């Protein structure tokens, strides 16, 4: 508060004695209310400084604050003040604006370079500001969002399981736990929701859609309102047997129903899988602008419509709650923990409360601020460049200013003229920067990872425009004032000296500015190299398969020609031999039919031009986002050694299609599948042949596994699996995760195909329409819910890294360019200043090489100083990035050396041209001037 007390010195002493303590106290209260919010604090300080200075001035002038009409004495003092200010700064300002515009037009080179340079800096800073502003600075769009928390069920026992690396602490909670949380006093409101992927089968349409089951309280937490119809009522939260109802999002309403106003009461047809069908009645359309914390659904259904069977203790819903006022997260957690845990022990299940703002923005905050910082550095480089230009420009104008002063122009008047000229430059540059930002922002949004919240609403608005103009004016004023001050002190005496040959008074200042610019460019280049290296290292991680040229069609499995009831163990035991044969026969035919069906579509797909192979698989597509595991252990191993293994039902040819590597043993062949005889509820008569990934071999067997057996035990029985081969480990979710455990089995008793994979020699994206059409032609009942390429799926997992790498590379490149321009202008200016000297040297016998060396030596000095300044700064900056790096040390000497070398080479290259020009100076011409 001492600083604020100092500010109060602007008030008269009597005023301070009466009020300073109270004022400081009020400021303290304001300060405390913003603790932990740096932006709000900065804003408070800015306003408090303005407030103290302005009102201090008015208090000193004795301007009273009470009456609507000012007493005469105040009016006099105020108008006197205004008149004085006007005489100094306002009069004939229009003329100076004209002069400023004329300066830009008369020297188009100067105008073009300085406007472009500033526009580049202002444009990139503004574009990033628009993103930072929308994503980080604006309040989240939900009512009382600061009290919103996500309540996660946590499975501590899964923390080390590679399959659950991303989801173990972000899990669901059970239905009863949700009901109990609603009664807890710790929460004002608790909403529940769950997502599901379903098929939308209205006549003429078959498409995969995202359906969310939500409670009425969830809708109220999200501040949802309808533009048509009604929301879900609390009665729809619980009853399962009510008629199904549905809400449309505005996007679905427009896209699928043409925004018709008479939509209420119409029916939609949804299905979990092809063949089955449910009908729901549309009861409302959400208002545009309604947003949710996790993406957007196509349809919303009441949570009461989830089957009652899921209302036991199993975790089935995601929970979101609003904490009671004044309640801390810790207190909320203490209330929620016993409810979420239920009967489990704390090491099996526990709760976690995360504020929604943290959940959504936590991981995005630092990288975005860093990138914004990068844009700020680029802006600084641009400013330094313009400062250099202004210094050079000032030198050429000494003559003009000297004439003005000799004709009686006051220093203040000269200063005003130069300042207004700079302001004209600033406004032009800021407008150009704003235009650049308008163009850059959509590109930035397109490049940015889609997971950033609120990204779709990023736009250049008044706030952003004000930011651009403000930044432009501030930078030019700050960087232009120095040269203007120097220039305005020009005395008429300068006229007597031959100003054309006078070396300027501040070559050192210019050199320091250029050196600083190089230092800043080094910081940006180092960060860009670190992020680039990270991306490179990430993408060169072995995936275990080849994603290139791999097209994926996700399908909902066809309805089977006939159904088989799988008997329980007791039922099977009590069957007669005849019944057993009939059962096996039916099962065999079912398996056979499914197999033929799947083989048929694969055959058609393989016949497409450019396709080398195709295969099908069930759940657990790598990078497909969904996970389904079972616990396995080696035969004879204790239960404690069980691990979660991703089980994948595949067709033969899968490993070739995926481009996986067979490490040991043999691949799966048709013969491994055709063993339906002997399948019982109690288990197979003979073990099922499986191929396992290398990770399973290492973690469950600890060595050579081919020929050994895996065991899965569950209430349904004991199942044994013969390991016949080992393949490379395929990553499941990210480049950086531990190798997940996978097991591949040929399509036998589990009969659902979820994904068809097609390997092409060409572009995978180009073949997607043909793949979709082929499947539809083959079996209209097979619904293709989505098509994509494996490269796209894999790419999404590194979207953040790619965004950072690209953006920082752009900043680094721009900084490099600007630094080169800066060096060039310094060298060119020095050559121009030393023309006479160089001419004399040449006349006295200096060789061109000597002259070149003379010029290069000077820029070399700037480069060395710049690098020396930049290295520690780059070291500090790279420490900030260390959490975002992968397999690259933030102090990697290789990266630093490379960045420094690139910068030095570029800077030297930029000074070669002026040096060459210097070496061609004709002494005769110079000496005659």
């Amino acid at each position, binding site marked *: 508060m001492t600083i604020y007390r100092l500010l*109060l010195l602007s*008030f008269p002493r009597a*005023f301070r004695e*009466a*009020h300073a*303590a*109270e*004022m*400081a*106290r*009020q*400021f303290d*209260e*304001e300060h405390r209310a913003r603790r932990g919010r740096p932006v709000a604090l900065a804003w408070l300080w800015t*306003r*408090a400084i303005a*407030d*103290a200075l*302005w*009102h*201090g001035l*008015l*208090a000193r002038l004795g301007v*009273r*604050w*009470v*009456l*609507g*009409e000012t007493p005469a004495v105040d009016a006099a003092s105020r108008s006197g003040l205004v008149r004085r200010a006007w005489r100094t700064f306002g009069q004939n300002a229009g003329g100076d604006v004209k002069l400023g515009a004329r300066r830009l037009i008369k020297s188009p080179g100067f105008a073009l370079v300085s406007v472009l340079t500033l526009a580049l800096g202002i444009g990139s800073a503004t574009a990033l500001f628009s993103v930072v502003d929308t994503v980080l600075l604006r309040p989240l769009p939900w009512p009382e969002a600061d009290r919103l928390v996500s309540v996660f069920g946590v499975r501590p026992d899964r923390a080390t399981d590679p399959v659950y690396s991303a989801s173990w602490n972000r899990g669901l909670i059970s239905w009863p736990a949700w009901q109990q949380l609603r009664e807890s006093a710790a929460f004002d409101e608790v909403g529940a929701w769950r997502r599901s992927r379903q098929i939308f089968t209205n006549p003429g349409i078959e498409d995969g859609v995202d359906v969310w089951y939500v409670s009425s309280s969830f809708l109220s937490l999200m501040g949802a309102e309808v533009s048509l119809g009604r929301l879900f009522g609390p009665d729809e939260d619980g009853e399962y047997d009510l008629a199904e109802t549905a809400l449309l999002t505005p996007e679905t309403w427009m896209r699928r129903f043409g925004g018709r106003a008479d939509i209420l009461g119409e029916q939609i047809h949804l299905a979990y899988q092809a063949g089955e069908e449910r009908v729901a009645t549309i009861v409302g359309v959400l208002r545009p602008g309604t947003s949710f914390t996790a993406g957007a659904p196509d349809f919303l259904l009441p949570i009461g419509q989830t089957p009652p069977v899921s209302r036991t203790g199993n975790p089935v819903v995601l929970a979101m709650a609003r904490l009671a006022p004044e309640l801390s997260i810790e207190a909320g957690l203490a209330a929620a923990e016993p409810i979420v845990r239920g009967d489990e022990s704390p090491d099996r299940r526990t709760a976690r409360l995360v504020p929604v703002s943290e959940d959504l923005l936590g991981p995005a905050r630092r990288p975005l601020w860093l990138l914004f910082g990068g844009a700020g550095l680029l802006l600084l480089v641009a400013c330094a460049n313009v400062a250099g230009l202004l210094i050079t420009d000032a030198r050429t104008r000494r003559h003009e200013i000297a004439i003005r002063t000799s004709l009686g122009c006051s220093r203040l008047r000269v200063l005003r003229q130069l300042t207004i000229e700079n302001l004209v430059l600033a406004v032009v540059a800021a407008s150009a920067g704003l235009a650049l930002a308008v163009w850059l922002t959509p590109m930035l949004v397109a490049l940015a990872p889609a997971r950033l919240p609120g990204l779709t609403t990023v736009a250049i608005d008044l706030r952003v425009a004000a930011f651009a103009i403000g930044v432009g004016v501030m930078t030019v004023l700050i960087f232009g004032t120095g040269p203007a001050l120097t220039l305005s002190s020009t005395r008429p005496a300068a006229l007597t000296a031959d100003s054309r040959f006078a070396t300027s008074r501040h070559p050192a200042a210019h050199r320091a500015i250029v050196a600083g610019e190089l230092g800043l460019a080094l910081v940006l280049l180092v960060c860009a190299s670190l992020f680039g290296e990270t991306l490179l290292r990430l993408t060169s991680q072995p995936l275990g398969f080849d994603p290139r040229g791999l097209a994926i069609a996700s399908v909902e499995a066809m309805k089977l020609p006939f159904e088989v009831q799988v008997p329980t163990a007791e039922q099977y035991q009590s069957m007669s031999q005849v019944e057993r044969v009939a059962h096996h026969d039916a099962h065999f035919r079912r398996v056979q039919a499914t197999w033929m069906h799947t083989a048929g579509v694969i055959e058609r797909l393989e016949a497409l031009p450019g396709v080398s192979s195709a295969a099908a698989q069930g759940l657990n597509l790598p990078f497909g986002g969904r996970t389904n595991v079972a616990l396995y252990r080696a035969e004879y191993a204790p239960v404690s050694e069980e691990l979660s293994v991703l089980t994948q039902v595949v067709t033969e040819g899968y490993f070739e299609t995926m481009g996986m590597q067979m490490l040991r043993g043999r691949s799966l062949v048709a013969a491994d599948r055709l063993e339906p005889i002997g399948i019982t509820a109690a288990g197979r008569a003979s073990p099922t042949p499986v191929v396992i990934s290398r990770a399973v071999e290492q973690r469950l067997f600890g060595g050579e596994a081919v020929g050994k057996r895996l065991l899965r035990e569950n209430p349904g029985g004991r199942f044994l699996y013969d390991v016949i081969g080992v393949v490379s480990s395929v990553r499941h979710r990210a480049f950086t995760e531990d190798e997940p455990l996978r097991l591949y089995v040929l399509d036998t008793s589990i009969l659902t195909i979820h994904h068809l994979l097609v390997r092409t020699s060409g572009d995978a994206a180009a073949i997607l329409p043909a793949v979709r059409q082929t499947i539809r032609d083959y079996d209209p009942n097979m619904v293709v819910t989505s098509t994509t390429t494996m490269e796209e799926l894999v790419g999404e997992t590194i979207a953040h890294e790619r965004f950072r790498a690209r953006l920082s590379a752009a900043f680094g490149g721009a900084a490099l360019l600007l630094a080169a321009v800066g060096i060039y202008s310094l060298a060119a200016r020095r050559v121009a200043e030393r023309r006479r000297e160089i001419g004399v040297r040449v006349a006295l016998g200096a060789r061109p090489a000597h002259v070149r060396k003379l010029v290069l030596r000077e820029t070399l000095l700037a480069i060395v100083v710049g690098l020396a300044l930049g290295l520690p700064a780059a070291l500090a900056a790279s420490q900030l990035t260390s959490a975002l790096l992968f397999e690259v040390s933030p102090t990697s000497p290789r990266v630093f050396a490379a960045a420094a070398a690139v910068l030095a080479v570029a800077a030297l290259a930029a000074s070669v041209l002026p040096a060459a020009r210097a070496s061609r100076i004709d002494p005769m011409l110079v000496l005659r001037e």
Partner: protein
Amino acid sequence: MPRHARDVLPLKPLVFQALLVLADGDRHGWSLVQELQRRHGGKRLLPGNLYRLLNSMTAEGLIEVVEPSKRERVQAAADTGANAERRRYFGLTTFGRDVARAEAHRLEALVDESRRKRLITARPR
């Protein structure tokens, strides 16, 4: 300085607001500023602005620094701890009350006139 309340009309809106707030009872600066911000629709009132206002109002004789009543002291101490003892309380002077009343009458006359000229139609409630 014997003056008529009419001499200082019209008041600045913020001054009138402050008089209205103080009409309920004496307040210290921080409590006054919070109430004013609430009435102003959350618009921030920073210390320099506020205390120059209070200073001018005191100089015009509209308000004065008063000894807080015992009840208020106890209340304030419970609110913010021992610090509250040192707070300065402001209260309306008789002149201030007259001025507020005169300003209210002035505004009322304006509203009446607007109503007569059918600029606004709402009935007085």
